[in-house]
C-alpha cells in the first residue's frame, strides 16, 4: 500500500496533501508506505507499479467538500511537470507495468497564496481526509 501526499507547503492549503500523508506516516501502519512530493513525476510509475493499492492526496479547488475517486487512465494525456494521477496510470499501462487501483483524495483548498500553514477550513478537513485514506487502504 502506498500513500502519496502531493503539494507545495509554501502555498498554504496547497500543502494539505503532505499534511494528511505525514499524519498517516506517524501512525506507522504495517504494510503502508508514505511519500510526500511537490508534484507527481514520471518515475513514480515504478513506485506505483510495485504497490497493491495507491492513494494520492492533494489539494483541490474543484469541490467544496472532500472527494475521492478512482484515477482512470486516459482522461488526462498531458504529462507536464505537474503530472496527474490519471497520467501516471496511463504511463504505467503504456509501458507495460502492472497497475494497481490508484485513488485520488481531493481536499478543498481555500487559499493557495504564499504562506505556511493551512487555513482553518482546510485544516478542519484533515482528520476526515485521513479517515478517507485509511478506508481506501482497507484499514
Amino acid at each position, binding site marked *: 500500500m502506498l500513500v502519496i501526499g502531493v*503539494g*507545495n507547503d509554501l502555498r498554504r492549503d*496547497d500543502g494539505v496533501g503532505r499534511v494528511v500523508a505525514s499524519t498517516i506516516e506517524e501512525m506507522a501502519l504495517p504494510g503502508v508506505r508514505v511519500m510526500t512530493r*511537490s508534484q507527481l513525476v514520471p*518515475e513514480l510509475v515504478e513506485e506505483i507499479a510495485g504497490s497493491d493499492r495507491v492513494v494520492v492526496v492533494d*489539494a483541490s479547488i474543484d469541490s467544496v467538500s472532500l472527494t475521492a475517486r478512482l484515477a482512470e487512465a486516459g482522461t488526462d494525456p498531458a504529462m507536464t511537470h505537474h503530472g496527474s494521477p490519471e497520467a501516471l496510470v496511463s504511463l504505467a499501462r503504456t509501458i507495460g507495468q502492472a497497475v494497481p487501483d490508484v485513488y485520488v483524495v481531493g481536499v478543498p483548498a481555500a487559499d493557495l497564496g504564499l504562506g505556511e500553514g493551512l487555513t482553518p477550513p482546510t485544516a478542519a478537513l484533515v482528520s476526515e481526509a485521513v479517515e478517507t485514506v485509511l478506508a481506501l487502504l482497507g484499514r
Partner: protein
Amino acid sequence: MHDLVTIDPVSRIEGHAKITIRLGEDGLVSDARFHVTEFRGFEEFCRGRPVFEMPSLTARTCGICPVSHLLASAKAGDAIMGVEPPPTAVALRTLANLGQITQSHALSFFHLSAPDLLLGMDADPAIRNVFGLMGSEPEIARRGIRLRSYGQSIIEAIAGRKVHAPGIVPGGVAHPMTAETRDVIAAGVAEAKETAIGALELYLSIADRFQREIAAFGSFPSLFLAIANRAGTWEHHTGHLKVIDAAGAVVADNIDPADYRTYLGESTNKDSYLKSPYWKPLVPDSAPVADGMYRVGPLARINMAERMGTPLADEALDAFRETVGGVGLSSFHYHHARLIEILACTERIEEMIGDPLLTDTRVRAEAGINRRRAVGVSEAPRGTLFHDYEVDDNGLLTDVNLIIATGQNNLGMNATVAQIAREWITGATIEESTLNRIEAGIRAYDPCLSCSTHAIGAMPMVVTLEDAAGHAVCSATRG
C-alpha cells in the same frame, strides 16, 4: 473579423501561464507575449528569515529543481559567512548539479518535447502526447524514466530526500558520501551514458524534418549569458559570468556575480509577475528593453563553451557547430543542446565518481556572519540562477532578489512566439497546427514555473488572440 474558435491551450509547461497574440489593424501578427501570473511576493516572504534557512526555504518553492536553489542559496551563504567550502563539498555539490541537469533534461526531452519531435507537430492530438509516444516506442520511454531516476538518485544521495533538512548548506554539504553510496552511483553511470548516446542519435535521426521550425522557433540574433570557467570548457557550477554575442564574440567576461546589477536590468511587466532581465549596456534610457535581450540555459552554455571537456560530448558539440555554422541561434536548438549536456553530465560523472576526494569526511566550513551582502549563482538546468541576499548582523534577511532562468528567457520567449505566429498565422483563422507550434516554441525553452500552485483544478492555461484595440477575439482555457 475573427470567428471565435476553440483552440488548444498551452500544455506541457507548468504554472499559470498564458500567451497573448496581438493582431494589428491589418490583421497580421504585430506582437506576442508570454505571461506568468503567479508567484508574486516570494522575495517579500523571505525577508526576516535566517540566511541558514534560505536553502531549504527556496528549495521548497520548486518541486522540479530544488537542487538549483539549494546550490545558489548555499553559495550566497558561503559568501556571507566568508568561507570557502572544503574541496570535497565542492565536488559533491558539482556531482549533485550533474544529477540535477541529467534528470531535468531527461524529463524535458522524453516527456515534454519528444511527442512533438518524434510524432510530429501535426500529429493527431489524441496520440501526440507522451502516451502515444510510448505506445510506439516503449523502450525509449522506459529508458527515459530510468535516466531521470538515475539523476534523482544522485540528488537524493547528496542533497537528501527531505527538503526541510537539505544536504546542501552554507559552508558545504551536511553529510559526507559513503563508499557504498558512491558505488551505487558508479554502477548506474554506464546505462545512463548509453541512454544519453541513444537519445542524441534519435534526435539527430529526425531533426531534418524540422527545418521550417528551426528557422522560425526563435531564430534571431541575441546575446547569451552563462557561467564560464578559465579552462573554456562547458561549465555549470563554478566560475564567473560571461556574455557572448550572436557571432560568438565576447561581450563581457570575468564578471563577478556580485556585480550583476551593473550589467543586468530588470523590467517588471504590469500584467505579469515574470520579470524580464535585460543587458543594460545595450539599453540606454529611452530604448526598449527588448534591445537588451539575452538567452540563458543549455543553448547559451554550449555556445559559450570552447569545448565540452569530455570525448563524446566534444564530438557532439563539433557536429552541432558544423550543422549550425558556429553559434546556434534558433531556440529550437535547445533540444539538441540539452541532449549534448546530458551526455556531458554522464561522462563527467563517470570521470569523477572514482575520485577518493568524494568520500573525504571534511565537508563543511563553519563561520558566523562576516558579510552583509552576497550573491550566489549556479547554472540550473534552464539557465543561470541568481540568489542575492542582504542580511543584518544576526544573519536575518533584510533584502532578497532572485533572478530565475525562465525570467531571463522571457524576452526571448516573447520574440519566439511572435516569430512563430507571423510564420504560421496567415489569415483570420488559427489552425490547430499553429497553436501546436506556438506551444512547442515555448517548450523549447523548457520553462519552469513550478513555484506556482498546482492544486487539482488550479491550472488554468490560456491562449488569447487580441485585436489591435486589445480586445480578446478568441481564447481557450484548460481548467
